[in-house]
């Protein structure tokens, strides 16, 4: 009984520490590693530079599970609040980050556009991209 309980606790701890994806930029990009705060501001279109480099955030489609995890773990904002945030930004003349339909197209975009930052599932990470943050 005690052993089962301990195993359950270990399993829960491991599950809670599970990573869903990574925020990446191109391997050749000059973007320095942003803080979590900077990353959040980049995807909320408040910050457009990291150091001297202009950054361009790329989102997955609204229906994507990975986007949901990204919003929960990096932006730490729920969908309703995010929705009202973007409506307020529309009045300020600010649009949300552009979207790509699949993780592979996000990766391709990042590879080809200087300063692009996006998020990918762990299995798509290879030498073409540089990991900035895990979530």
């Amino acid at each position, binding site marked *: 009984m005690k052993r089962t309980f301990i195993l359950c606790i270990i399993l829960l701890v491991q599950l809670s520490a599970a990573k869903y994806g990574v925020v990446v930029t191109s391997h050749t990009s000059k973007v320095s590693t942003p*803080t979590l*705060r*900077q990353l959040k501001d980049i995807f909320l279109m408040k*910050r*457009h*530079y*990291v*150091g*001297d480099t*202009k950054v*361009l955030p790329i989102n997955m489609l609204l229906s994507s599970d990975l986007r949901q995890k990204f919003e929960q773990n990096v932006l*730490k*904002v729920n969908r*309703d*609040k995010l*929705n*009202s945030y*973007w*409506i*307020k930004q*529309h*009045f*300020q*003349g600010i*649009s949300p980050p552009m979207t790509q339909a699949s993780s592979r197209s996000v990766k391709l975009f990042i590879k080809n556009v200087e300063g692009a930052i996006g998020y990918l599932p762990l299995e798509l990470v290879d030498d073409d991209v540089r990991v900035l943050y895990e979530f």
Partner: protein
Amino acid sequence: MRFFIILTFIFTMLANAGHYELGRGVKLDEKLRIGGYFSADYEVSNTRRRARLDDVAILAYGNLTNELSYLVEVEAAPYYQRDFRDGTQKYDRHFHRERLYLDYQYSEIANFRLGKQITPIGYWNLEPINVLRETSSNPMLSSKMFPKFLTGLDIYGYLPWFDSLTYHLFMQNNRDIDADYINIKNEHFFGLSLENEVSMDFQYGGSFGEFITEDRKRVRFAQLNAKYELSNLSIQAEVALDHGEDHSARVKGDKFAGYMQGHYRLSNEHAFVGRYEYFNDDATDVSNHIGIFGYSYRPMYPVSLKAEYQWNSDEQLNKFLTSFSVLF
């Protein structure tokens, strides 16, 4: 007539847009997104019973290059109003230039906005339209203490070494682009605003600066603001102090305005709001305490139906207000 032509044009565009979400505008191209808003309100007080089609506005914006973007907004307000007590009607079908600027993103710490823009002070002034507010009315602070708009240059960005501290250094040394459409006419206006966004739930900041009014009164102002959100409850407060003196520096007068507003969401759609505000003007000897209690219904965020009752220390000013507004 012009209004209906514009509405027809917009709804035709919406109908043809591939994917449209209310409150986000229509993206025709990376260089052009079009949207707008309108509001209608109804007021009953001891002195009037008035219906208005108030703000009718169209806005367009987009990115011209990676660094350069623009925004244009034209507005007519009040587009139409009728007082049922004395039978008078008023129209303003002229669309004024409310905002017209270019934004140049140069770096993390220095970006430039040139043209007519909303003065970057506080919270209320930055989200002044009915649909984004939680009450139909505006606090007196939003119209009496500093010019709402700036026709000039704003340099803004993050302060070096601070992740969350932003600044706006703004200046104007000319007339407003549309001087008939501003709360305080002036030809000289500058100031500095600082804002610390500790988190999306807690922010505070302040501003100070100076402007010279059309009648040559020099006014120095200081302002503080803070807001805090705790699950369903949000609290927002702002205070501002004006110290004015005329050209000869003999006639002096101070003004103070402040408000604190609490907003409690029962759900995404339903909310209650309460606000207390105080305004004092030494020069005109006006002093007023105002209490507001209201209800807000948003079937979806960009559609707002609101009702409120206002208690004033001068009972003649007590009123009931209700409004309907949409951002599209």
